[in-house]
């Protein structure tokens, strides 16, 4: 008799970042199906779903409903940091765990969260180290007007400064705002070496479209000369972006490099949610199936990211780091780590003197 483990899924299937949520949900459901299809495992997983529909105020009550009402111990969910921070008090009250499968801005290590996607030393730092020597040190930063945009741009500002560069502008727009004209005009006026895009969802699509139009009129803004860089752009959104994404660059723990026609495109969001279920299943099986007990020290765990371990102090995953460029509607990896990169969510091991050693100029 297989024991049944109920796991909450908390994803917004509508709203501005629905494509990312749908990617995560599909990954989690695929992993659940795989676990349930493996008769050798002593557990079966039942998904219990709640949909906040992109409404930030729905996250906390729905998390509470899953944790108390449905009595689940584990929730795979949340895309934005804003929603994660909304859910944390409910987790702390009930002793639940959130498996968070989106890249985020770091500077958090909560005992009730397992961080399955990239943190700053696994996205923005390698992205800047790749881009600055190739494109230049004059940055223009844009982002959605909440913690992800603010914090990732704050880190980028420090990194650009450490590389001897300058930030020509930093602009934020509300989540869902598609009025990007003024920002694109400012970018045209300042002529940076690259644009760092920390917009989320519809704003990002509108921005890339307007930027592609700019590139058609002015060769400076062709993606080969002044690319748009992202830490959160994945296959999940390539369809929404279309041709406007060509030549732009992203960092992430996974890119789907299979040839065209090899099946539906997978994204790192999907892989991270799938990994969450796989790690959860492995810890429960190894732990003899006791309650919802979670012991990340039992790793390494087999996941779509490879055989990964966790940093036990911060509960962040060791992850691969890849830099990829969009070519013909899919990502091509152009740089990255050979192995896994240990997480450093507080950038406490970051050394400004060596991070950009190759790009630093001699100051007389």
């Amino acid at each position, binding site marked *: 008799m297989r024991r049944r483990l109920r796991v909450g899924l908390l994803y917004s299937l509508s709203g501005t970042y629905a494509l990312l949520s749908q990617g995560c949900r599909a990954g989690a459901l695929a992993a659940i199906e795989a676990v349930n299809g493996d008769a050798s495992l002593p557990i079966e997983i039942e998904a219990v779903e709640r949909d906040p529909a992109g409404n930030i105020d729905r996250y906390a009550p729905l998390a509470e409903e899953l944790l108390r009402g449905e009595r689940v111990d584990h929730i795979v969910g949340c895309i934005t940091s804003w929603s994660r921070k909304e859910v944390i008090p409910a987790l*702390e009250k009930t002793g639940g765990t959130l498996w968070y499968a989106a890249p985020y801005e770091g500077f958090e290590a909560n*005992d009730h969260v397992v961080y399955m996607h990239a943190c700053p030393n696994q996205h923005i730092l390698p992205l800047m180290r790749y881009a600055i020597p190739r494109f230049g040190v004059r940055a223009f930063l844009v982002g959605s007007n909440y913690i992800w945009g603010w914090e990732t741009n704050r880190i980028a500002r420090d990194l650009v400064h450490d590389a001897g560069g300058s930030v020509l502008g930093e602009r934020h727009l509300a989540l869902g705002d598609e009025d990007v004209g003024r920002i694109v005009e400012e970018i045209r006026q300042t002529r940076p070496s690259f644009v760092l895009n920390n917009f989320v969802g519809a704003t990002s699509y509108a921005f890339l479209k307007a930027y592609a139009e700019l590139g058609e009129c002015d060769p400076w803004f062709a993606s080969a000369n002044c690319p748009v860089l992202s830490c959160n752009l994945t296959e999940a959104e390539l369809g929404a972006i279309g041709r406007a994404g060509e030549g732009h660059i992203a960092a992430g723990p996974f890119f789907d490099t299979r040839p065209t026609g090899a099946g539906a495109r997978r994204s790192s969001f999907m892989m991270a949610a799938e990994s969450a279920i796989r790690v959860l299943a492995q810890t429960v099986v190894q732990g003899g199936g006791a309650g919802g007990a979670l012991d990340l020290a039992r790793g390494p765990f087999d996941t779509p990211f490879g055989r990964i371990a966790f940093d036990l102090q911060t509960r962040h995953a060791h992850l691969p780091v890849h830099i990829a460029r969009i070519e013909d509607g899919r990502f091509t990896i152009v740089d990255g780590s050979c192995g896994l990169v240990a997480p*450093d969510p507080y950038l406490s091991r970051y050394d400004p003197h060596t991070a950009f050693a190759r790009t630093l100029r001699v100051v007389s």
Partner: protein
Amino acid sequence: MTRQRIPNLGGARAVILHRPHDVVDALARQLSAIGLVPEPCWPDLPASVVAADFLFFDADMGFDAQFPWAAGAAPLPTIMLIGSEAPGRIEWALSREANAQLLKPVGSAGVYSSLLIARQTFERRMQQTAEIETLRERVAERQTIVRAVAVLGGDGGEEAGFDRLRHLAMDWRVTMEEAAARVMAASGEPPRTGPAKRRAG
């Protein structure tokens, strides 16, 4: 745009002055997660505390004799750990002039911000203390200026004296107070104010 860069805390030493307790374990775990090196101790502070980067101390059971410095004169940023909010304990903890506070029990949240607040408050206080010291010196030297102006002015009066003193200060590249002190020393009159510290000129 000016902006204070968030300091990198990696490798910083944080001494925790608290009796062995779950609070210490939770705090040490969170400090390690942020990248600091926690050093619990009780009831005595190790001599090495003066070279540490942060000191957490217990507001509940702490006492003055634990600190090898006067209240308000800690050489590093301090953070008080408050458990019981008994007025007497708060009063004592306030007398130590901590730079930030953290409520017990310690969870995943609060530690990082307490470190940043403590460091910034500490640095600002050090800066203000130095500024106040300089201003005090200047106030103390006012009497010297008045007398130097009288000596230098001679028959020309106060305005001429002040003008000469200003020129001397510019020539010597020192403050007006320093120039006045030199004038008085040269005139052979004993200084009337206390022996204020002279800044290297």
